[in-house]
């Protein structure tokens, strides 16, 4: 199977990238700093503690040994302690990452599920008004930053609609831990009250985070679809009796999706950064909040951990975008130029 081969090649490439990433992080965290032990333990640690820590890291051994030792520890969950939480940073990440991941993943799914069909329908002849809506959404999304939208939503919904789920992730006891993502866990454990509460709490931040993306994706899909309807193949299939539904959603959309998928990937990647302000506004307590606290308090291990998590997230994301592009465009997976 050609597709299997394509997948295998891309996965291999992603693995190589991950190795590169690990080398880079090793370099930044162990080689570049003059005194990594002091960095990790912070200014209040005693000289003896630092010396002990340095011994633990094996700083006197050859570099390659240090790297493998570091990698071994890393893969076995020894990510070092945070000077703020006094806990293994891996544990901190396990608490904070799922919250952000859930938030931005739902956002990117909503963006695709709303933005793409909106663009398609607006591009079809029926959508004269919709195309105006798409353009307006797009411009509003570009002009107003998402945390402002978030603040506005909080004010409006609490003042006029007496909607209280405007901060935090949940206001009832959390569901049993499965993945750490509260909404997902409440579904997995069939916890109805938690599901209702998390859904309510997700509502406003998701709108704030997704609005701009929906506009952008809808606009991109819209203009891509308009271009497709002037393509010869589109006209040909139409004269061959294609119903517009099949023509738009099967044939034209597939071509129009190529740039859309790329932008969705970029959006997803930028969400993990943009989510910070939205997380602040909604007191979300996700990874972005964790990372900023870490930076403010020079919590070195925590910073390294977030860099690693985000780095891995980008690599996996890139892989997914590549694979889906290869899936929809045979020219990409067969390595043929356009």
């Amino acid at each position, binding site marked *: 199977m050609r597709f299997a081969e394509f997948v295998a090649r891309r996965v291999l490439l992603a693995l190589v990238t991950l190795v590169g990433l690990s080398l880079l992080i090793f370099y930044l965290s162990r080689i570049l700093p003059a005194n990594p032990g002091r960095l990790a333990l912070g200014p209040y640690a005693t000289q003896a503690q630092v010396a002990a820590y340095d011994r633990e890291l094996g700083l006197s051994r050859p570099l390659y040994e240090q790297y493998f030792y570091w990698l071994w520890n890393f893969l076995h969950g020894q990510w070092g302690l945070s000077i703020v939480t006094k806990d293994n940073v891996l544990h901190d990440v396990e608490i904070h990452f799922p919250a952000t991941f859930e938030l931005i993943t739902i956002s990117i799914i909503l963006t695709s599920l709303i933005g793409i069909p909106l663009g398609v329908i607006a591009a079809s002849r029926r959508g004269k008004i919709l195309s105006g809506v798409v353009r307006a959404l797009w411009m509003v999304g570009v002009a107003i930053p998402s945390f402002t939208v978030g603040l506005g939503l909080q004010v409006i919904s609490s003042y006029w609609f007496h909607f209280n789920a405007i901060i935090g992730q949940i206001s009832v006891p959390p569901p049993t831990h499965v993945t750490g993502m509260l909404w997902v866990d409440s579904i997995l454990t069939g916890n109805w009250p938690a599901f209702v509460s998390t859904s309510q709490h997700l509502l406003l931040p998701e709108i704030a985070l997704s609005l701009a993306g929906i506009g952008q994706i809808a606009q991109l899909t819209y203009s891509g679809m308009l271009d497709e*309807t*002037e*393509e*010869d*193949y*589109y*006209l*040909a*299939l*139409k*004269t*061959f*009796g*294609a*119903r517009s539904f*099949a023509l738009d959603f*099967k*044939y034209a959309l*597939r*071509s129009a999706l190529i740039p859309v998928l790329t932008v969705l990937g970029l959006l997803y990647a930028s969400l993990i950064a943009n989510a910070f302000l939205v997380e602040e506004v909604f007191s979300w307590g996700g990874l972005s909040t964790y990372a900023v606290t870490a930076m403010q308090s020079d919590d070195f291990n925590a910073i390294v951990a977030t860099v690693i998590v985000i780095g891995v997230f980008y690599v996996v994301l890139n892989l997914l975008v590549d694979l889906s592009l290869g899936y*929809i*465009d*045979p*020219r990409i997976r*067969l390595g*043929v130029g356009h």
Partner: protein
Amino acid sequence: MTSFLEINGLNLSVHSDGRVLPILSDVSLTLERSEAVAIVGETGSGKTLTARAVMGVLPKNAVIRSGTITFNGVNVLTKEGAAAAREHIAMIFQNPMSSINPLFRVEDQMNDVLNWSLHGRKETKEEKTSRIRSALEGAQCYGDGKILRMFPFQLSGGMRQRVMIAMALLRKPSLLIADEPTTALDVTTQKEILSLLTKLTKEEKMSLILITHNLGIARESSMKTYVMYAGRVVEAGPTAQIFRKPLHPYTKGLIDSIPSLDKSRSMEGIDGEIAQQDRAAVGCCFASRCSYAIDKCLTRQPELKELAPGQKVACYVAEQGGLRVV
């Protein structure tokens, strides 16, 4: 009695940058059953838009200002009429590179085209497969099993054109419109595709509209020829007669400029090109390039008049009995 296909006084404009540009002016064309007509004219003369008007797939910014098109007596300028006409007319688009969606296997697209033509009628998988096979054979696409599994970009230009023809054949059309079916192909393949089209029109009793730059092709494969210039039909009539005795200066220039028909040269013999103002000219649309022009030519567009049996020409000088260089 009405003809199989009748275009009558078609006027078409496009909206572009807030302006309305006339593109087709007073285009008329008739086609009988089993007849093969050629539309010739240089680039921008309006051949493709005429065909697209018949198929009801005009660009969004195009409007038909007046005129009628009927197929089999049905007005195709209504939505229903266009859909009805498409049941019997198939068009092969100008560029075989772009006329098949590159992202789907040939199989996929042929299956869809077949299913659309069934209108919900149920057919077994075997019946469908054999129909697709026979369409491919009809289009002389051999080794069909392999072709079906391929993506369009894996096929040569000639093969792609055959696949297009096969898709058209799936619908068993009674009229085939082929827009420059051979332009992008090498000479040998051109010949093969043309003889395929001719064979199909004979065997399947299809009518054919062949759009081409290439006068040699028009001469070989058509019974009637329409010569278009700047969105107008400037000369029309039996092909042999037009080639023997062209009456319009433009046609004459075209034919004179072909050193040998086998070389099948295109429109290189006449200096200049169609200018936008020619389409909206008060006088004759060809006046700016015509070496026979007289004063009258600048005052009004000449009408198409039958100057020889079956041969219509829009030219004052031809009306007065002949082309003398002034």
